[in-house]
């Protein structure tokens, strides 16, 4: 167990000491960070969360103790293991290439797309991204049922990338209600890096 004592210090010093300590700790080692300043405590909690480390918190008197386990390498890059692992539930993207689900009558196709997004919202397996291209971008337009479903997905943190060229082609850029205006580079990156792709 490694203790990083930041008592008596104000931000950003506690964050710097914490980051340094975490980097120096051995993999699997337990790290305890001490602070007696409320603002530093709040900032440390947020910072650790951003670093994808979840601290266990204890408070004794005016001293807060944040304990973390250095289970993974501290970086934004996935660990080597995660590259080799089989596709997991979160490692899939949904690529929506048309405003209609399936081929056939447009009315049923439209209805199916609404139902698909509803079901996705209720699913316990959520995609790492939703890609919209060609007429698929039309499901993100204002005052559509589908845009409302996409909004719920976005609110829980799922990124939605809408093809900017497609929005321009259909002249509907001003009508988009949800998601990021994106480009082919980003869309291709997600398609190539996905564990698997769902085309509804």
């Amino acid at each position, binding site marked *: 167990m490694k203790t990083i004592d930041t008592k008596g210090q104000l931000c950003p010093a506690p964050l710097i000491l914490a980051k340094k300590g975490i980097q120096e700790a051995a993999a699997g080692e337990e790290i305890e960070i001490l602070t007696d300043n409320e603002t530093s405590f*709040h900032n440390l909690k*947020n910072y650790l969360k*951003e670093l994808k480390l979840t601290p266990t918190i204890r408070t004794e008197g005016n001293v807060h103790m944040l304990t973390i386990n250095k289970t993974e390498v501290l970086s934004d890059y996935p660990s080597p293991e995660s590259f080799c692992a089989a596709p997991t539930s979160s490692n899939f993207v949904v690529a929506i290439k048309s405003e209609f689900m399936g081929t056939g009558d447009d009315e049923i196709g439209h209805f199916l797309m609404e139902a698909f997004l509803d079901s996705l919202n209720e699913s316990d397996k959520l995609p790492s991204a939703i890609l919209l291209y060609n007429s698929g971008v039309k499901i993100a337009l204002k005052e559509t049922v589908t845009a409302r479903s996409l909004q719920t997905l*976005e609110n829980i943190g799922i*990124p939605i990338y809408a093809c900017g060229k497609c929005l321009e082609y259909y002249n509907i*850029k001003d009508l*988009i*209600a*949800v998601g990021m205006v994106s480009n082919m580079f980003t869309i291709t990156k997600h398609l190539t890096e996905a564990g698997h792709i769902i085309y509804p």
Partner: protein
Amino acid sequence: MTTSSFDLLSTCASGGCSAKLNPAALTDLLSSIPLIKDARIMVDIETHDDAGVYRLNDDIALIVTTDFFPPVCSDAFTFGQIAAANALSDIYAMGGTPLLSLNLTMFPSKDIPLEVLRNILAGGQEKINESGAFTMGGHTIDDNPPKYGLAVVGTVHPDKLITNAGLKAGQLLILTKPLGVGILMAAQRMGLTSEDTYNLALEQMKMLNKAGAVCMQQFGVKGATDVTGFGLLGHALKMAEASDVSIQISLGSLPVLPQVMTLLVSGCIPGAAFRNADFVKKHVFYAPSCSVEQKMLACDAQTSGGLLMAVDTNKANDLIAALKIVHPQACIIGEVTSRRSKSIYCL
């Protein structure tokens, strides 16, 4: 103790615009104090603009603003320059020209040699002169730590007013000065910056947004703000809400001062950046590709920061070229889209 060696930073714990009150608390408290309306008021506090604007007649609108803060650097003259540049910036952000100025000063006459006060005011005056405004007086209170800034009156043609509410979907967003001065100032206090880098930050804070304002008028910009204490995202949020649009920012393309990203990786994140991040949180979507360092850079409180402006796509390249003469790091950082579920999307 000699005057020239007096370290103004020894007088306060947090400086510059990061000394601002928590924006959420302030918004909440102000909502309970109604203001009287007048048809001639073109801009009041409601759009969270940089300054208030009052239409005097068909040709002239008055812009009024004030800004002051505790020391951001050790040297008195430099502090005066930065505080004045920062206060004048609000006039420029509205597309105006500074006309009259008053010094707002707090100074502990028993603790610090009065010569230091002279130097602060002299630094301020240098920037006021550069702006073309006239100093009409001021007010000084005996108080510790010292604080300095200006109340400024500027003018603009009512039809050429630039506000937070002037953004249109389809426009591109340009930022004139690189980000990271808040981080560098925090690092300086801890002895983590190189002198060269820190001096770059000081030079940038001293720089008026005058040339930027001229460029904006030249290219018909209608929506802009200056990036200060609430950070890039805080100010972008105010513009998005006032203009009823969404803003998409590519965090990877943000101009940044040297050494800042390395400092961020090491955990050098000032408290004000966390405060700003909390303030914008509900209204921002961060793509998973955004790193914690990029997010914190976008939330870093700037002192006397650059102008953030929206320009029509077909004029963007010419505007950038004009800005680059004075602001070599000016660049496109994002775009304005129609109003979406979130006010800001960060990629």
